[in-house]
Each structure stands twice: as structure tokens, then as C-alpha cells.
């Protein structure tokens, strides 16, 4: 019962503890803010930094151009995501296959994952984005936008494949045994029983990779396409001022912070769900 003396005592105790930690948090936040507000403007070069990074007029001037350039980032993100998920799923299923005839495929997939995970994204964009069009392909097949996207898909396909693989391996053996005992083939077992559970389990990890992808899309600018990072570079040169970079960062944050929060929320929900059933 909640009316007991011990229960009231505990409630009081918890309330005091909460009040104490709230006070500590407020005081420390205030101290840090005061330090920033009071100290930073007193630094010798602050006026110059403020003029070249936080120029309100130039911020407003370049914002519309940056936003429209950002649409290209969004488009790259949107067409890469389904390809990456498809590729990742194929990689995971191929790695988990046991048929001896599929050995060459397994070996190929292992090599692919090792290579793509071991090379910095930016290098893979340079190599694929400059290398493949260098084969002398005709328009539109020589577009750096196309091959930059392909490089992103290849890299993230390897990451996402590993995430899916962990999810597949996390499905209890008893699930497979139950499905097979009913006469389902191994393919049907994968499709109806293992994959649906695996995917549900790895949604938060996948979201993490999506947040990274959303940022790495900007790297495609290094081989030509004018997306937000490149547009910011152009504006920076025009104004001889770094404010466009700050504006570009702000635009990224508007997308990635909500995505990150959503990921945390999904993670917390997943943890509640799984520990909840485990304890019961």
C-alpha cells in the first residue's frame, strides 16, 4: 500500500534528493553560461571572430541559397537510404547462409564488408566518384552525383549489413527450430520468422547510421555537385566571411538533432520492452 509510513518517508526522501540535484544542475549551468558570456567577449580577437563567423546580415543573405542547395543533400539521402537497406539486408542474409554452393558469394560479401568498413568514406567517394566516370562512360552515366551516391551506398551498405547480421544472430535458436519443425523451408523461416524480429530489434542502431549518413552526404560535394557544403564554400569566398559555414551547420543541426532524439527515444523504448519481458 502507498499509505504506509515507510512509503511516505521514501517519497519525502526522493523529493528532497530531486530538489537537491535540480539546484546543483541550475547552479552549474548558470556558472558555465556566465563564464561564456563574460569571458569570451573579453578575449583579444573576439570582435574579429564575431565579424567573420557570426555576421547576421550575411547569414540572412546566404540562408535561402543554402536551403535550396540543402535540398540536393536531402535528395541524395532519400534515394540512398532504400538502396542501403536493400544492400545491407542482402549482405546480412548472404553472410548467414550455410549452403556450400554459396561459398563464393559469402567470401565476396566478407571481402566487400571488410574493404568498405576499412576505408574512410571520403576516400571511397573519391575513388568511385572519379574512378568510374574515368572509364569513359557517356552522359548521364559519368555523373559525379551518381557515382558519389553509389560510393555512399557501398560504404553504408556494409555498415547496415553488419547491423542486420547482429540482429539476425540475436534471434533465439528456438524460433528457427519452431519454424523448421512446422515444415517451413530455411528461406521461409528467414522471411516470416527471423527477419521481422531481427529488423525490429535493430531499428535504433539503423537510425544511428541514418544520422551519420545524413551528415556524410555533404562529402559528395568534394567531387563536384553543388550541395550545401559547396554552396557555403562559394558564399564564403564571395563574402570573404565564414558565416555561411555557420549557417550550413545550423541547417544540418535542424535535421540531425531531431533524428538523434528520435533514435534515443526508440532505444529507450526497445530497452524497456526487452528488459520488461526478460524480467517477467
Amino acid at each position, binding site marked *: 500500500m502507498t499509505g504506509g509510513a515507510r512509503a511516505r518517508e521514501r517519497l519525502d526522501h526522493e523529493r528532497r534528493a530531486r530538489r537537491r540535484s535540480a539546484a546543483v544542475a541550475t547552479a552549474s549551468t548558470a556558472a558555465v553560461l556566465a563564464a561564456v558570456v563574460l569571458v569570451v567577449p573579453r578575449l583579444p580577437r573576439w570582435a574579429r571572430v564575431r565579424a567573420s563567423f557570426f555576421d547576421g546580415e550575411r547569414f540572412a543573405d546566404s540562408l535561402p541559397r543554402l536551403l535550396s542547395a540543402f535540398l540536393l543533400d536531402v535528395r541524395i539521402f532519400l534515394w540512398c537510404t532504400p538502396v542501403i537497406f536493400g544492400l545491407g539486408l542482402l549482405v546480412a542474409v548472404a553472410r548467414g547462409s550455410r549452403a556450400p554452393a554459396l561459398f563464393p558469394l559469402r567470401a565476396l560479401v566478407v571481402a566487400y564488408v571488410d574493404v568498405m568498413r576499412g576505408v574512410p568514406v571520403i576516400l571511397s567517394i573519391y575513388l568511385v566518384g572519379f574512378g568510374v566516370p574515368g572509364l569513359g562512360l557517356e552522359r548521364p552515366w559519368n555523373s559525379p552525383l551518381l557515382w558519389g551516391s553509389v560510393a555512399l551506398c557501398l560504404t553504408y551498405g556494409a555498415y547496415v549489413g553488419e547491423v542486420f547480421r547482429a540482429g539476425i544472430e540475436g534471434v533465439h535458436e528456438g524460433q528457427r527450430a*519452431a519454424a523448421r519443425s*512446422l515444415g*517451413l*523451408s530455411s528461406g*521461409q523461416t528467414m522471411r516470416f520468422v527471423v527477419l521481422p*524480429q531481427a529488423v525490429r530489434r535493430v531499428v535504433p542502431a539503423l537510425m544511428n547510421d541514418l544520422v551519420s549518413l545524413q551528415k556524410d552526404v555533404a562529402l559528395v560535394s568534394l567531387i563536384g555537385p553543388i550541395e550545401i557544403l559547396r554552396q557555403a564554400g562559394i558564399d564564403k569566398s564571395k563574402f570573404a566571411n565564414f558565416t555561411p559555414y555557420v549557417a550550413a551547420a545550423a541547417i544540418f543541426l535542424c535535421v540531425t538533432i531531431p533524428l538523434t532524439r528520435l533514435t534515443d527515444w526508440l532505444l529507450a523504448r526497445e530497452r524497456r520492452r526487452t528488459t520488461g519481458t526478460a524480467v*517477467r
Partner: protein
Amino acid sequence: MSVVPKVRLDRVTKSFGDAPVLVGVSLDVAVGEVVTFIGASGSGKTTLLRCINLLEPIDDGAILLDGDEISRVGRDPNPVRRRIGIVFQAFNLFPHMTVRRNVTLALTEVLGAPRDEAEGRALELLGRFALADRADAYPDRLSGGQQQRVAIVRALAMRPEVLLLDEVTSALDPALVGEVLDVVRELKGSGITMLIATHEMGFAREISDRVCHLDGGAIVESGPPAAIFGDARDERTRRFLGRSLAR
């Protein structure tokens, strides 16, 4: 032997690595017979049932269903599994599907039954075992006893000729054991052949046509329940029963 046994185990042998689990198990089970395996944990009961369902490959010997060797290397296990159902100690229901879909999955995907026919069969069976009102629930909303009854229904929906029950009450609260055993009682006499691994000695005595004591991967004694429980001849069986019944 003039009548072909439903299931024949012929010197079935199996090891996990260097550890022998089954060392030449031979047994004939007649159509409609209920055979119970008793024995200490690790005596090979579970492995034996998994071998019959072809979930574990055997190392030597043979398993025959209606005189047809199902343990032959390279044989497609799926048609065999349609005829032999198994229920596991840990239920192993599919947690992402409703009770109803757990039961219809193999009907529609393996037997190719139309959806409404499969649903009809599922609801009929769920109704028969007092689970009709749980048809749209997910397994984690069910008690252990209900989950295990659903698992039995899921196996029965395929109309198996042989049903394997692997310690189906071992993971349950004592209070929930009864409802699951009632289901098994009801199945006896329906013509289905049952092979049961269990630690419930009273139940084994009541339901079995024959009881086999497994020890160290071999059947050391078998016979009608009255003979085994009343007058076991093998020293190991007497010792095992002494320990089990003393609890």
C-alpha cells in the same frame, strides 16, 4: 513383425562433439500409441525427440516413419516435418505474430491453404482448447500455460500423424501444469501417436501405454507404466524413480 510400426528407431546414435548423447536407441511405436521417456536431465530425451523431427542429424542407425527411412542423408526434411509435430519446453511461439497467425502461418505457407480456411481451422482448434478469446493477442500477453496450449494447437493444426512433446510443462508454474496436461489427455485416443519426454511421473504413469527409462543415452528399461513404476527390474530405473518420487 507383421504390422509396420508408426515410428521405428533402429540403433539411433548421436554425439555432440566427443560427448555421446544417444548410444543405440531402438524402439517400435505403434499407431496411436503413447510412449513416454523418463530419465534424468542429460539422459538424451530432448535430443531423441529432436532427432525424430530431423532437427538434429543422427550419426548412425535409422529412423523410420511408416516403414520409410526418414533419416536418410540428403532427404528433404520438410515433407517429413509436416507429418511429425513437436512442442518445445520453451513454447517458442513467434512473438511478433498474434496467436491466430502463429497457428495459420504453416497452414498458408507450407500447405498452401487459403487464408480463410486456415483461419477457420485455427479458430476451431483454439476454441476446442478454450483459447478462442486469445486469438488476436500477442504471445507475451498470455500466461505460460496459455502459451504452451497455443504451441500445441500450432503443431496440431498441421494434422500431424505423430506428436512429439518435449518436457512441455517444465517451464511452467506448478499451478499451470494441469491445464497443459489436460490438453495432452484429450489428445490421447484421438488416434495420434505421441512420444513424450517428461519429468511428471504421475502424468507419465497415467497417460502412457509404455514408459521408457533413458539413462546415458540408452533405453535401459521399458514397459507398461504399472510394471515400470510398480516393479522396475533395472537397478538404475529403481534408483531414478526413488529419487524422482521422493521429491
